[in-house]
């Protein structure tokens, strides 16, 4: 099953040229998603506002339990009970507020407008059906009349990603490698011509060379098809390679966002700084890498009031105990931290 391995991402994520088809913009405003537990309803995502500019790639970085996957599912209005979107809106160009969508309209929107590549897409295929059969199922459930055209489009997409389309469509998932399955996942998300694509952990469980290849494909397909792309990951390296804009999530809050290079080069929120400092590097003094003390909160241990990060924060002040810092904008950068605010006013 050899196919050409394309170049690993080396060039910086360049601003995307004018898209062929208008990519949709997305405006998430004041979104709160709660899960019902024995301790009452607890917020997994709390008061998150995030704008995805048309034609950009945004990366959301967070640890397990930070709420990043819940946030991504909200884009499809697909948060499953016991979870529910409590407040806020998700406005998508051409669709309106998806929080208000339901039933058939919501089902049509998923797939046709929003493509979603699920976490562990490698394992989300039906083991009993060939990829081609699953593609036809997808087409039928979305009322596609021209199924031949759909297959043609699928082959073209697979070919674009360096695979032999006809052969892949005839294969069962066990005949495909992890990297190939991931590409099938991307194909299924795009084949109905969605222009908003969400990739949840697109490279987890892939090794380095395959990861580099997938990231390059994500970037190229994004530019060629004129997409708005959201990448969810725990790996800063992944967003550093693909994203124009980076948003950092912690304990259900977006603590920092801004242009990727600026955030990585000069992180402002203590959590972002700590995360970057905790990455072991290939050159230089290895003792410069420092572990973040403490551990990330879970749904049950997220503080009910005050800053979500204060337990692990070196810059902690009295106000952090009581007041949740607001996300304040400074040009393209947005930071939610009392200490950063103080420093700038001083």
């Amino acid at each position, binding site marked *: *099953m050899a*196919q*050409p*391995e394309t*170049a690993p991402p080396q060039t910086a994520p360049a601003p995307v040229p004018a898209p062929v088809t208008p990519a949709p913009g997305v405006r998430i405003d004041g979104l709160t998603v709660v899960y019902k537990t024995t301790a009452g309803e607890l917020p997994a995502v709390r008061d998150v506002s995030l704008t995805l500019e048309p034609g950009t790639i945004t990366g959301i970085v967070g640890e397990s339990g930070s709420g990043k996957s819940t946030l991504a599912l909200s884009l499809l209005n697909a948060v499953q009970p016991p979870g529910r979107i409590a407040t806020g809106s998700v406005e998508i160009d051409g669709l309106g507020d998806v929080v208000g969508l339901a039933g058939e309209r919501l089902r049509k929107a998923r797939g046709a407008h929003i493509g979603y590549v699920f976490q562990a897409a490698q394992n989300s295929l039906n083991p009993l059906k060939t990829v081609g059969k699953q593609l036809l199922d997808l087409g039928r459930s979305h009322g596609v009349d021209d199924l031949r055209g759909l297959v043609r489009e699928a082959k073209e997409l697979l070919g674009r990603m360096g695979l032999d389309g006809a052969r892949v469509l005839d294969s069962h998932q066990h005949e495909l490698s992890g990297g190939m399955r991931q590409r099938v996942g991307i194909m299924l998300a795009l084949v109905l011509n969605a222009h908003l694509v969400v990739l949840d952990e697109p490279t987890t469980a892939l090794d380095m060379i395959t990861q580099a290849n997938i990231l390059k494909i994500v970037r190229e397909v994004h530019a060629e098809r004129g997409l708005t792309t959201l990448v969810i990951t725990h790996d800063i390296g992944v967003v550093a390679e693909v994203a124009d804009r980076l948003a950092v999530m912690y304990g259900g809050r977006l603590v920092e966002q801004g242009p990727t290079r600026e955030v990585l080069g000069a992180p402002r929120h203590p959590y972002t700084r700590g995360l970057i400092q905790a990455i072991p590097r290939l050159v230089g003094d290895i003792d410069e890498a420092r572990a973040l003390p403490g551990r*990330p909160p879970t749904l049950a241990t997220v503080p009910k009031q005050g800053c979500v990060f204060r337990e692990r924060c070196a810059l902690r002040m009295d106000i952090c105990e009581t007041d949740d810092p607001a996300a304040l904008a400074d040009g393209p950068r947005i930071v939610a931290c009392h200490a950063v605010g103080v420093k700038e006013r001083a």
Partner: protein
Amino acid sequence: MITATGITRTFKQRGGVLAGREVKALRGVDFSIAKGGAASFIGESGCGKTTLGRIIAGLESYDGGEIAIDGAPMTPLKPKQRQPHFRKIQMIHQDPYSALNPTRTIHQTLQAPLALRARQTGRSKQWMEERAAEVLSLVGLDPGSVLSRYPHQLSGGMRQRVVIARALTVDPEMLVADEAVSMIDVSLRLGILALLKDLRERLGVAVLFITHDVATARYIGDDGELFVIYRGQVVERGPVDSVIADPVHPYTQSLLSAIPVLHGLEEPGEQPVVPLESLDESRADSGCLFARRCPFRSERCESELPLLQVTDGVPQEHACFHPERRSVIARPLSGV
């Protein structure tokens, strides 16, 4: 001191259309680790690095070659006789969620191996209790709060520490850590790596580190040796920093080129190497195992297998007919 010489292992497919097909997982691997030393194996999935770790830990059999533990060769021994030797080598698995029994408290989890150790060394029940608290403290956990808990009450990072503590109960000389941090939250990873590094220094425990993340290998043992393994053959080996800074084998260069660049902090290397195809185990090879994917192959590479060797002007051992230094890794931007 643990020494492995010429370890080979071939898996035969059973049943199905591929029956009888052989996969050479290891094709003669040599290495040795001294007390408190470190060695890291890097490579793609399917390159044999996990099989090697399992063989060294005594969990998997080998076809050829020899493992010597403190000078005692294992091959002549019966499985039962090998056990006390392999006790000295303990495995830390990738997934701390499945490595601990969810129905047992941490206290119960530690008691089983401690009871064994107490029998072997003629120690008392009192010693077992003390030792349980001691190994937990060694891995940075508070025995008072952890002993009575169940695994689900601990975070991933704490669970991995418990797994390491359990390994320490039998006084190992070496830990085999197979992707030991890849399932741990990013902010907690460095803590586990620092712990392994610390155990090397404080207890003189050697670490065999198996990973696809070169930077973590460097963190645990920048004084140790780095082995780059491809389809069961070590294709490059040398001091960690030397291999990272001056790789000469195109496969090593491909692996290092694929590491994401932290744009804003780093700039990409100048001569990235990209393999021509992806890994395909099913094809028979006549020459160099990497030749089909290698952008620099020559005719010789397709007919003759290069062996690990030392050549003039090359800082580390390599298995390549055309070794050439290339600048592939990302460099920190100046002024950041």
